[in-house]
């Protein structure tokens, strides 16, 4: 099965090559960052968006993808996932030196499913059941090796306050672990300045300071020195206050990854001004201990109300509806989030959190041509992703999706409407 898919991908990738000019005729173009356009043309050159608009002419040499009856929009960006690896975490909690590069499996069904659902960028990072869990990387769900898939490596360190036993002990563990490294950094800096003093005094013959930073501590050192970002998982409101205190104390660059029980902290989050990613649980039920009434909360809706920007995640390991981007956005909307905010929460907001806002997340000139072509509105349950382009290349076509064909039979799939032809 896996080899078949890989083979199919290889064939698909041959259809359009990167150096070609590609023109996408879009019946409806959802740019996310700007106005929605009707009957627009989008030109791709060298994998980047060269121009787009209703008055753009299709050059004679361009390969045309006719999506004039379809909807074209940027592929989704998932800011935080631990799927696509064999398991999210190492047994040991304090392992900052690990990296998902060693664990990402290009043949994982998760990436195939991601592509099928119009996801073009994924941040794979160690899971939440850890303390300092290792670093993550950004990948596209297409490629035969991790290197092919890689968009950006070492995107940041996973920190988590998810307690296996006592909440207070977990916070204390985190405090101690960070302090350990801080003292290590101070010691390192002291040795370095001593070397420099020796050097100017001529007390040493060494040309340069040779002590290396301990590999086991490097990601945390980078974090404390402001060179890297931490993806900080906070399971509930009870830990949030301490998490923010830690962030401020060590002046860390952090993206907060919030568990569903953080729904009460909207006001605190607005005050903290830290980028926020919600985990995949869009609805959360809580029972009031006084009245025994159970209420349903949507953290996304509460954050929208508090004017906090956030990214939405999907649950890659689940068989629930929460694995579909459209379901996640629609759930947020059912709880009162407006359409644009919901769309942005899976496109431009996560792109910003990843520092990729100049590359992906919306249709703008100069950005990477990561596009999805849908049969209808992205928030409709009946819409299918017909085609996905990554770096301007068609990497997925529903008509050639072996799995869908296997599940639904050939007769049910439409003939490929997006046939590319030379004019």
């Amino acid at each position, binding site marked *: 099965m896996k080899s078949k898919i890989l083979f199919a991908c290889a064939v698909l990738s041959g259809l359009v090559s990167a150096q070609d000019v590609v023109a996408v005729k879009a019946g409806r173009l959802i740019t996310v960052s700007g106005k929605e356009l009707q009957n627009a043309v989008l030109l791709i050159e060298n994998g980047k968006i060269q121009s787009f608009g209703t008055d753009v002419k299709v050059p004679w040499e361009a390969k045309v993808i006719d999506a004039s009856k379809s909807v074209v929009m940027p592929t989704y960006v998932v800011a935080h996932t631990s799927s696509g690896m064999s398991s999210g975490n190492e047994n040991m909690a304090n392992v900052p030196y690990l990296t998902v590069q060693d664990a990402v499996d290009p043949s994982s069904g998760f990436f195939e499913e991601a592509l099928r659902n119009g996801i073009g960028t994924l941040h794979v990072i160690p899971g939440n059941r850890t303390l300092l869990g290792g670093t993550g990387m950004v990948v596209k769900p297409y490629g035969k090796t991790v290197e092919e898939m890689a968009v950006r490596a070492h995107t940041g360190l996973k920190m988590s306050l998810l307690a296996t036993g006592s*909440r*207070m002990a977990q916070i204390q563990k985190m405090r*101690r672990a960070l302090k350990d490294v801080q003292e290590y950094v101070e010691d390192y800096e002291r040795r370095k300045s001593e070397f420099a003093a020796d050097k100017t005094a001529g007390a040493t013959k060494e040309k340069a300071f040779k002590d290396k930073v301990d590999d086991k501590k490097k990601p945390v050192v980078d974090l404390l020195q402001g060179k890297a970002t931490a993806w900080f998982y906070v399971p509930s409101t009870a830990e949030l206050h301490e998490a923010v205190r830690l962030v401020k104390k060590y002046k860390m660059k952090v993206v907060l990854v919030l568990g569903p029980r953080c729904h009460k902290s909207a006001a605190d989050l607005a005050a903290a001004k830290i980028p926020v990613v919600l985990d995949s649980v869009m609805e959360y039920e809580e029972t009031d201990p006084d009245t025994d009434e159970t209420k349903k909360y949507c953290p996304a809706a509460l954050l929208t109300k508090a004017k906090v920007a956030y990214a939405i995640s999907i649950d890659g390991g689940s068989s629930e509806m929460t694995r579909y981007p459209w379901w996640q956005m629609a759930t947020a909307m059912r709880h009162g989030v407006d359409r644009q905010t919901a769309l942005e929460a899976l496109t431009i907001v996560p792109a910003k959190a990843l520092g990729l806002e100049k590359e992906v997340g919306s249709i703008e000139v100069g950005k990477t041509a990561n596009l999805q072509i849908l049969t209808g509105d992205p928030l409709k349950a009946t819409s299918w992703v017909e085609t996905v382009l990554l770096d301007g290349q068609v990497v997925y076509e529903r008509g050639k999706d072996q799995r869908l064909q296997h599940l639904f039979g050939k007769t049910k799939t439409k003939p490929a409407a997006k046939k590319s032809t030379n004019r």
Partner: protein
Amino acid sequence: MSKTPLLSFLLVTSLALIAPATGQAQAAAKAIRCGKIYLGNGQVMTNVYLVIKDGKVNRLARTQPRGMELLDASDKVVIPGIVAADTDMSGHADGKYNVTPDFVALEGFDYLKSYQRALSGGVTTIYLSPGRRRFVSGQGSVVKLHGKDIVARTLKESACLRITLGAEANAGPLLFEPTPHPTSDDPLLPARKQFPSARISQLNELRRVFRQAQAKDAVVKGSGAAEDRYSVVALKSVLKGKLRLRIAAKEAPDIRNAVRFARELGVGLVLESPYEVEKALAIHKGAPLNAVFRLAVRPGAKNAGGENRRATGPQNRPENAILAARAGTRIAIAPGSDADMSDYLLVASVAIRMGLTPVQALSAITLDAARILGVDNRVGSLEPGKDADFLLLSGEPFAVGTMVEDTYVSGERAYHRENTSDMLVVKAGRIITLEGRTIENGAIVAAGGKIRGISNDPTIPYGARVISLGKGSVIVPGFVDAYCHAGLSGDGTTIPTGKASHRLTEVIRHDDPVLKHLAEAGLTSVFVSGRDSGLVSGRVAAIKTGAADHQSMVLKDIAGIRFVHDSLTPNAIKGLEAQIDKAKKYIEKWQKYEKDLADWKAGKKKTKVEKKAPTAAPKPISETDYISGSWKFEVEGMRFPIGFIATLKLTADNKIGGTVQMVFGGNPMGTALEITSGQYNKDQTFEFKFSGGVGRGGGGSETSFTGRVEGDSLVGKVSLGGRREMTGDFTATRTSGAAGTRTVDSGSSVRRSKKPTDGSPQKPDIDDNLEPMRALLQKQIPAIITTSKAPAITEIVKSFESRKLPYILQGANDAIDTPEILGGNKPGFLFPPDILYRKGKKITNKAAKISERGHPVGLVSGDTEGARYLPLHAALAVRYGMEPTEALRAISLYPARLFKLDHRIGSLKRGKDADFVVFSGNPLEMTSQVQLVVVNGKVVVDNRKNGGPK
């Protein structure tokens, strides 16, 4: 903490300067008018104004401060918010290491959780424990349970360093901390045990920990193995005297060790749950100690004290706290379980029962608790400058029925209790129960509409409304008028004649002003019926006067059936008996149904669902009703000048009902008789008949009419039954009403029952005419027979006694002077107001006379609005010689008993309806006034504020 005093002074002053500017909006001052206030520092004041500003106590004023919001708590008791000196509300505590001085309890606290339960018990400040089972557990914190964010709520992030001595501290887990890449320098080590594991090493280990922290080269974050890499900041603070020690030590040796260690370091000490503190104190005499106790008392739990017979060690007994307090220890007390915070005051009151004084107990949950936690500069008492954390209590702090009604934290209301109790307690100088006892200085407790108890000094539950009336006041059962028409003459003009079929309770309105006036006079129940009119004079409905709604107004739908019988003809009683016996078949139907239903319910018998064609709903033949109305029949062709007057009624199913009375020579004869059957036909012809002694040959004969409608009159033939049949032609003309449009429910006395769908037996149709008879025959209600002549009385008594049916005589004048006619029976009597009759100078009181002979006597008004003078009628009876208690019973208990309603009304007894009246003095003295009237447990008349009745 390390700032110089000057710096912190500057900080404080600058804050003080900024505060008014930034917080002006919410800083509006508020005054609470306190009926009584315990300041918490031992001072108690009454009628003062507690002024709060910026969430702080501003001052206490004797007069009402101007220009600020006023909160009236003049009927409340105000105390400081409770400071819970020990809780487990920091969430999960205890790490895996045995020494964790850097654990801070606050970090585990979820401040956005709902703490309404604790707030409902009056808890405003709590201590958070960093753990219970580790040697050096960490730093305890003190927070408030309400406030805008965690910063505003935190009183002290680091309030103490908690240490455990004794068995709990010995149970540290094994430590296994594998290294990811083991080398010879960093080998994989086996699991290690943690010190200490026996009492012998505990103090030694503790000294080592502190000595290490004290060492000049001590690294702030600790060094060595993982379990030793804790921050020593807290340990250093203890050594500098900035942080107090809180040592949990249960057994005497551990308590002694704790005291000794604190002395060695020269630092403050709080003992946590020192069960054997008394033993330890014997040795450390005079040692100033602080101790926190969690009282092992669980209200509402089995084994409330948590006794464990098998435990050999010291037990957590509430007495420990009291012994410690007596030995001069400053104590704070908290409930044994966080779940009991809602009854904090009750738990503390147990300590009072065990020997603590109320003053000590209050202090142990407020100021002393705050002192022990080191937050007494902010909370614990209501002195000016402190936080405005206070509680509004419904009564004295440690009374069983006292609840926290409102909890204020920093001047903001954090909890409010809704009082859902309907309990009413009325206290009076005397309670006349009419049940054989009179209670001086008693109280009636009512709830759920019933009397719950009558006693001298009841413990008053929370939420009860207490009404205390003067010493001279007297409570009597609500008065009962056994014969009146209140509520029936809605417009006050006419009183309808009584009918057996009249469903009285459907027409009487609970908010009828007449009923209200009766309530104001002290009448709580009235037995309402139509005017007496002939043999069957209609049913009686028992009605409450002050009811809040229709449902609670109806005491008994059919409470009696009235008859008039005064005929002197021999066997005249037969007519009355015939009326009653008509119901016999009807009863059989019902009895069969009830039996079938019981069988069906028990699953014994399946009733056959009869496959009868559904009976078509009755259809009126024509839209216009030519029959209903009052008619005068003139008859021709007979030997006697006979005529009839009739009231006819056409029902939806074309039956003719009503009454007919014979007229002889222009004078009505006898009584009106019910039409037994009648039919109206399509061709506008009709027939109806009635039975009774009209025709020759007396009773049992039938008189029948056949005729047709002719314009606005009826013409036809009448036939008198009997041995010698007589016939004549009649013409009837209307005397009232006009041919009208028929309505479907045009007063048929029969109400069809619906066919059940669940296979249960079908209910018989309800015949409203026969319903009262059925109740009578089943002995559920009495017959009230108005009579006066001796032969009639004798007949009645004989008839009813032989049938064993309940009956009451009304009037019955001849029985007063000639009691023999009663044949030795003791029926009940009802007397209308004219109880006196004069013969020459001799005045006889009928009621008194009958009462003396041992008959239950009811005094009745027979009035509508005038029923409010019922007490006057009773007073008159007393004035002319009736025994006063019997007179009272004549307007309360006896009518209730005679109408078989004495399980609900008539006297004051646990379980009966809470219907009673409070008079300012003797209820039979007209100079006494109605102060309070209670119906169904609710105050319906309250004249106290007006100084008297309207």
